[in-house]
């Protein structure tokens, strides 16, 4: 990887793992998704991103993953300067993060073990490493005994835990969870956020988009509120 895309300043302790400076994003149809967003998220933080539909949450996540490019401003994530970075380096960026989807995104023809192992095969891991790390990740989310189950044999909460194990298996620095509790019952929602909190305590930065105000209220983490493409509130204590 070329060093020009690594920001040496950002790798120092207490420096942001995610940084937006004057970031705006307008889609080709003319929709202003984000306008002049400035934000810093430090390594080890747990951040909720909240906002109504169309507030710009998805665009915010897509910019972090470099699924979209900003029209203006500078974005730095995990030491990568996303403004300058060429498309061929996107896979390297994404290997530093784990993603949890609202709709789980499990491959229905693969069992639980294979679904988690898939994320390791993709980054070139093989054999023993895969078996060891997948077992470890499944144990972390409490599914050590469901390795051979197929996704359709699992509840919504269990499927999301498989998704969480898949996000964790490559030991990322950053977990991005896009409404991970959107398709699970309230009890399971708390369990999932508890798991994310445990993961966060071990040093992994967690960025979670949610609509669930109860979760935001009950888990005292930093909250970033978006509205009309702008950050309207940012509270490190969790009280908005």
């Amino acid at each position: 990887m070329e060093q020009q895309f690594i920001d040496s300043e950002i790798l120092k302790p207490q420096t942001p793992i995610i940084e937006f400076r004057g970031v705006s994003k307008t889609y080709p149809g003319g929709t202003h998704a984000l306008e002049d967003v400035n934000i810093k998220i430090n390594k080890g933080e747990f951040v909720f991103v909240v906002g109504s539909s169309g507030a710009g949450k998805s665009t915010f996540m897509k910019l972090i993953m470099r699924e979209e490019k900003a029209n203006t401003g500078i974005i730095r994530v995990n030491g990568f300067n996303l403004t300058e970075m060429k498309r061929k380096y996107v896979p390297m960026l994404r290997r530093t993060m784990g993603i949890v989807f609202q709709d789980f995104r499990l491959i229905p023809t693969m069992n639980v073990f294979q679904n988690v192992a898939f994320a390791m095969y993709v980054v070139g891991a093989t054999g023993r490493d895969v078996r060891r790390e997948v077992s470890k990740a499944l144990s972390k989310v409490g599914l050590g005994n469901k390795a051979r189950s197929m996704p359709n044999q699992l509840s919504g909460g269990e499927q999301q835990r498989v998704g969480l194990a898949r996000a964790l298996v490559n030991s990322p620095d950053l977990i991005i969870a896009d409404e991970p509790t959107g398709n699970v019952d309230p009890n399971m929602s708390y369990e999932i956020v508890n798991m994310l909190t445990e993961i966060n305590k071990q040093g992994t930065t967690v960025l979670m988009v949610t609509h669930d105000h109860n979760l935001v209220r009950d888990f005292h983490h930093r909250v970033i509120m978006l509205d009309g493409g702008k950050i309207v509130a940012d509270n490190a204590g969790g009280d908005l």
Partner: protein
Amino acid sequence: MKLGSFKYLAGEGVKSAWVNRLMTLASIGVLVACMVIIGLAILVSENVNKAIGNLEQQNVVMAYMKDYNWALYGEDSGNSASSQTADSDSSQQETASVEENVASDETASDETAESTEEADENGIRPGDYVIHNEQEARALCDEIAKLPNVAEVTYVSSEEGLESVKESMLEGQEEYFTFLDEEYGNPMSCAAKIRMEDMSLFDETIKEIEKFDGIDAIQSQDDLAETINAIKNGIGVAGVWIIAILMIISLVIVSNTIRVTMYNRKLDISIMKAVGATDAFVRIPFVVEGVIIGLISAVIAEGILYFCYRVATETIISTLQTTDVVRYSEMALLLFLVFVGIGIFAGVLGSVIMISKYLRREGSEFAAI
């Protein structure tokens, strides 16, 4: 990429071909049809080339030499059968004109020497002609044989030439030559019977042969040479077009199958991209699937073509009573390599084109599948 990863991806490609087996079968069917047509085009072209090769073997050129008979009867020499009875003055003039036709590299002194030589009973002197005996004629044949496009040169004596002419004459015409022979002697000059390697270089080779001093005239079948060349060129052009069109069809067919597979695997692709798979990694299973389709098609096409060609050649051999056809065994390896080449080309390119087009469209990782 590690070997383990490649094995995993290759396995995914095989699995994908099996999961989409109906589409895979349809693609194999069309690819096999294309390959069989390409194979037939190659076999037909080979058979036509073989037939043309036989024609080329028969298409010989006769180069007649400036020998004694040429000096005696040849139009260029100025002598004719009747000139034997001409007075000495006219004979002198004719001899002078013969001298103009003899080898140009002779020196002026030689010419002077020859002009003093005595004429025989027919008024011909050794300096009036270039080829004086069989040894010189054979030496000239050897010189002609050294030309680049000359495959074979055979010396034909004037006696053999006369026999050959008589054989080729219609009934009645033959008697004229017999009469000439008996009355005035054999009118034929000795000749070089020449066979060329490449008929497309016909004109150039003829010009080279004409440059030899000992050569008087060349008799050839220019129209046959032209026809052979036209047929050869026509087959070549038609073959290239057929192969090009069918290659494009093969490519489109494989691309289409890969596109269906790709949309079936949208979920896998989005997850792969989200967790950091490179484009090359995402492509491999599709390329493997394309290559599998190509290789299976190649094997089936080879089998079908073998069967069809065998039936066709057996029918031709028994009907036309000829064994002059290309054997499948002579072409089997070449055809298989061509089919495998087409299969791999269509499989790799078809899948790479499709998946690259899909991967260039960013923004599918978070979007609803």
